[in-house]
């Protein structure tokens, strides 16, 4: 059983702060981390491998050379092998070009060890589109199952898995043929503490790094900025709401004014 997890390096949006005066983000203060959803994706691969008693977990990332850090982090969680595709040609990719590049790398990985399951995060916390996973699945022509909250059964003989997929007001249970692609929600598992041997292995681990030239049959016109149908047009500050008004006076005076404002809508209030 070969599971490949796609992992992205993202700025830690919990720590970086937006300067409210200039409306810009202080990127120097932004440490790079493994996309939190992808950590759960790796953890799920580890869980499946343990349940099956066998298997191999590879992780794949596209990004700058520093992205080797998220591969090491994945090894810590329990991945066996890591691949980074890194090249100027990939820069500026939208989701269509990103899924193309990643699927080409997956093709090369699969040539050596056929892939049974690809796991992605539900979305990356920076780009936040959630479009890359389904895109990869279509390019590999395998079924994409998004928003997975549980893998309930793994039927090795019949090459079928059962999964629960989150819906707006509940979930659905699906039977899916392998190979397939899953995108996972955070509630699918809890990240376990990494065992010491994994930490040691991760510290020494050197991922396979590929440039465009290392991939087979790549159409360069589909990569990076050139291969991206979407472009960012203008950036603008959203218009302010009308009627914005700061209340004035002493605090109790302001509270009184606010109560008057609320009292105008008192049919809504259900005050105890």
């Amino acid at each position, binding site marked *: 059983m070969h599971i490949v997890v796609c992992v992205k390096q993202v700025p830690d949006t*919990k720590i970086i702060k937006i300067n*409210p*005066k200039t*409306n*810009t983000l202080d*990127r120097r203060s932004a440490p790079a981390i493994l996309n939190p959803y992808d950590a759960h994706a790796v953890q799920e691969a580890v869980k499946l491998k343990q349940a099956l008693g066998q298997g191999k977990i590879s992780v794949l990332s596209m990004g700058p050379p520093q992205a080797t850090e998220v591969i090491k982090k994945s090894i810590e969680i329990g991945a066996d092998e890591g691949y980074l595709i890194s090249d100027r040609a990939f820069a500026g990719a*939208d989701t*269509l070009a990103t899924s193309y590049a990643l699927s080409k790398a997956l093709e090369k990985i699969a040539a050596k060890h056929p892939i049974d399951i690809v796991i992605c995060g539900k979305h990356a916390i*920076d*780009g*936040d*589109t959630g*479009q890359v996973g*389904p*895109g990869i699945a*279509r390019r590999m022509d*395998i079924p*994409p*199952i*998004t*928003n997975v909250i549980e893998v309930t059964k793994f039927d090795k003989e019949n090459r079928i898995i059962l999964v629960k*997929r*989150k819906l707006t007001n*509940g*979930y*659905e*249970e*699906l*039977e*899916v043929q392998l190979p397939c692609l899953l995108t996972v929600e*955070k509630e699918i598992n809890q990240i376990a503490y990494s065992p010491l041997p994994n930490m040691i292995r991760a510290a020494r681990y050197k991922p396979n790094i590929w440039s465009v030239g290392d991939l087979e049959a790549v159409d360069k016109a589909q990569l990076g900025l050139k291969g991206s*149908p*979407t*472009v*960012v*047009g203008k*950036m*603008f*500050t959203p218009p302010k*709401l009308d009627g*914005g*008004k*700061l*209340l004035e006076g002493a*605090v109790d005076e*302001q*509270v*009184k*004014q*606010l*109560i008057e*404002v609320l*009292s105008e*809508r*008192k049919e*809504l*209030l*259900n*005050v*105890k």
Partner: protein
Amino acid sequence: MDFQDYQGVWVFIEEKDGAVASVSLELLGAGRKLADKRGVELAGVIIGEHIKHLSKTIFEYGADIAYVYDDPIFKNYRTESYMKALLDCSAKHKPEIILYGATSTGKDLASAVATDLPTGLTADTTELDVEEATGLLLASRPAFGGNIMATILCKKYRPQMATVRAKVMKALPPEPGREGRIVEESILLREEDIRTKVLEIVKETTKKVRIDEADIIVAGGKGLGSAEGFQLVHQLAETLGGAVGASRDVVEAGWIEHAHQIGQTGVTVTPKIYIALGISGAIQHIVGMKNSGLIIAINNDPEAPIFESCHYGIVGDAFEIVPMLIEQLSEVMSREGVSHV
């Protein structure tokens, strides 16, 4: 690619409990504006089993055409079957623009369709417009990296596609009896060729937090300092009979569950009254609540961006103001006899 061949604005119609989902009605409202600006027709694509009757609703809400794929194979949403229907429809009728709700179904379907077409797909759009002369879709979404929006364009491919957040567009008032054209379509799909089966759909009946349905929301941010401090939000919400909302930072700190998160990666809400306590007002938060009826913000930093997005603001310490508010509110309301409980 000859852009002249691509005409019309489409909305992928989602069904919910036998009726058209509200997000699809909102998109018909938004789509109608785009279609009128371009002088073209607005169509809805309806895929499912026994769903032809939904055409009537979409005509009343502004559509001119309903493309209908009615077949038992479409009983439940599955990426592979729905995608094939939509690709078929798009190849036959060549729309200029296709809009989807940014729901789990809409996002899943749009991502797959975009890859096969191929074309660009703008995610989680919160503002839509079109260039009258060229038909270029202007789909805007909050940009990572500041309180700014970015307009995403797809200049060289057709159709242009976007997923759109629920509750940010407005449905038109329905026009009873308004008619349109039904175009029945079909494709040959065999069950054996579809690699997924839906075994069961489980609706969560337990009354979980549905902040998207509340009339009053009190939301709290990181400014409340701690999980204990956040109790202030619960207290005011209880006083007002409202629901509790939160910023993402609060959810990540573990003070409350994700179901309460408001914003781009949480829920979009449109209550009649929205009160923000200790929330700075980052764009990702604002897009999730800016259509609320009355927005009140309490924050101790006069420069906080939330004050640019509220109707009434109080600069001050929430821990000083809110207890006073609760006390006086209860007093006033009981005096005026509004107390229900």
